[in-house]
C-alpha cells in the first residue's frame, strides 16, 4: 500500500536525482544524494509546508551535492576530477534529440557544453540546471536557491554568457 511518503517521494525523486546528476556528473553519487535527500524528507515530512516542499528538496539536494563535492576534493588523487564527465555519463547525457547538425557534431557540442557546465561555479551552475534543463520558472529557481527572481534572471544571463565564452574558446 502506498503511503503519503511514497507519493511525495516518487513525485519528486526524478527532479532531485536529475538535479544531483547534472551537478555531480556521476550516477552513483547522484543516487546516493537522492537517497539521502529522501531520507531527510522522511524525517522532516511533518515539518515542511507542502507549498515549500519542492524548493526545500532542491535546496537540500544542492547542499548535499556540494558537501559531497567538498569531500571529493579532499579525497581526490587526481586534480580536476570533479569537473570532468565520465565516458558513461557523457554517452547518456549527450544522446538526446539532435538538432539540424549531424549527430556526431551535435554529440560533440553537447559534450563540450556539459563540460563547460561542469566547470561553472555556483550559483550559475544550479541556476542553469534548474532553469534550462529542469524547466523551472525563474521564481521557482529563486525559491529553491533563496534568491530573488530578478537576481535569477541576471545570473542566468551571466551563466549562459560564461558558457558561450568557454565554448567559443574550446571550439575545434
Amino acid at each position, binding site marked *: *500500500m502506498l503511503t503519503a511518503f511514497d507519493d511525495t517521494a516518487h513525485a519528486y525523486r526524478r527532479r532531485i536525482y536529475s538535479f544531483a546528476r547534472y551537478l555531480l556528473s556521476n550516477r552513483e553519487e547522484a543516487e*546516493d544524494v537522492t537517497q539521502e535527500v529522501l*531520507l531527510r524528507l522522511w*524525517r522532516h515530512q*511533518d515539518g515542511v*509546508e507542502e507549498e515549500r516542499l519542492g524548493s526545500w528538496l532542491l535546496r537540500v539536494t544542492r547542499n548535499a551535492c556540494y558537501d559531497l563535492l567538498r569531500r571529493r576534493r579532499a579525497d581526490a588523487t587526481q586534480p580536476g576530477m570533479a569537473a570532468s564527465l565520465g565516458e558513461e555519463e557523457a554517452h547518456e547525457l549527450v544522446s538526446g534529440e539532435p538538432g539540424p547538425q549531424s549527430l556526431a557534431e551535435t554529440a560533440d557540442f553537447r559534450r563540450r557544453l556539459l563540460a563547460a557546465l561542469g566547470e561553472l561555479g555556483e550559483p550559475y551552475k544550479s541556476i542553469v540546471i534548474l532553469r534550462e534543463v529542469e524547466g523551472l520558472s525563474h521564481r521557482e529557481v529563486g525559491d529553491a536557491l533563496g534568491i530573488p527572481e530578478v537576481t535569477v534572471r541576471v545570473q542566468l544571463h551571466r551563466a549562459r554568457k560564461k558558457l558561450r565564452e568557454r565554448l567559443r574558446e574550446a571550439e575545434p
Partner: protein
Amino acid sequence: MKKIILQGLALALFLSLPAAALQAQPPSPGLVPLEELNLFPRDKLSVEVNLGGAILHLVAAAGKDDPDFSKLVGGLQAINVQVFPLKGEDGEAVKARIGRAVHWLEERGWKANVRVREKGQETYVYMKEEGGQIVGLTVLTFQPGDEAAVINIAGRIDPAQIGRLGQKFNVPQLEKVPVKGKKP
C-alpha cells in the same frame, strides 16, 4: 567511489495512516529544522534524537503507567536533540553557530525566556507561543571543554505538565510555573 555514509538515521515506525489524515496534519510552528541550522557535524554527535509525531504517539500509548509523561508526549509533534562533544573542537566556531541559531529563532518570532552567559558557558531557552499556547521549546547550550547541545520540542506544551515533569525529570527551571488551582 566513496559512498555517502548515512548516519544518525531517524528512529521511526511509520504508521500507515490514511493519506488524507497525514496530509491534514499541519506542520508544527514550534519545529526547528536542525538540518538548516547546521549547528554541529552530524558524524561527530555523541547523541542524536529524532522523534516524530508517529513514534511519539506510540510512546504515549505505551507509557500509560506514567500519565504525566504519556500526556505530555502524546501532545508533541517532535523531539529533536543533538549533543556535540567539544573536546578537540573549535569552541568559538561552535559558539558562533549557536549565535546564528539564536538569530534564526528570533527572526521567526521565538521569544527568549533565558539567556545566560557566565564563565564561558552559554544557555538559551526560547519558546514559541501561538494563541496563548506554547507550541515550541528550544534550548541551546554551550559548556566549554565539555559539550554543546540543541534540544527542540514541538507540539502542545502545557505549562502545568512541564512544571510537574520538571520535578520528575529534574527540570527545575520549569517547575515553578504557577497554575491556578493545581498542585505542582
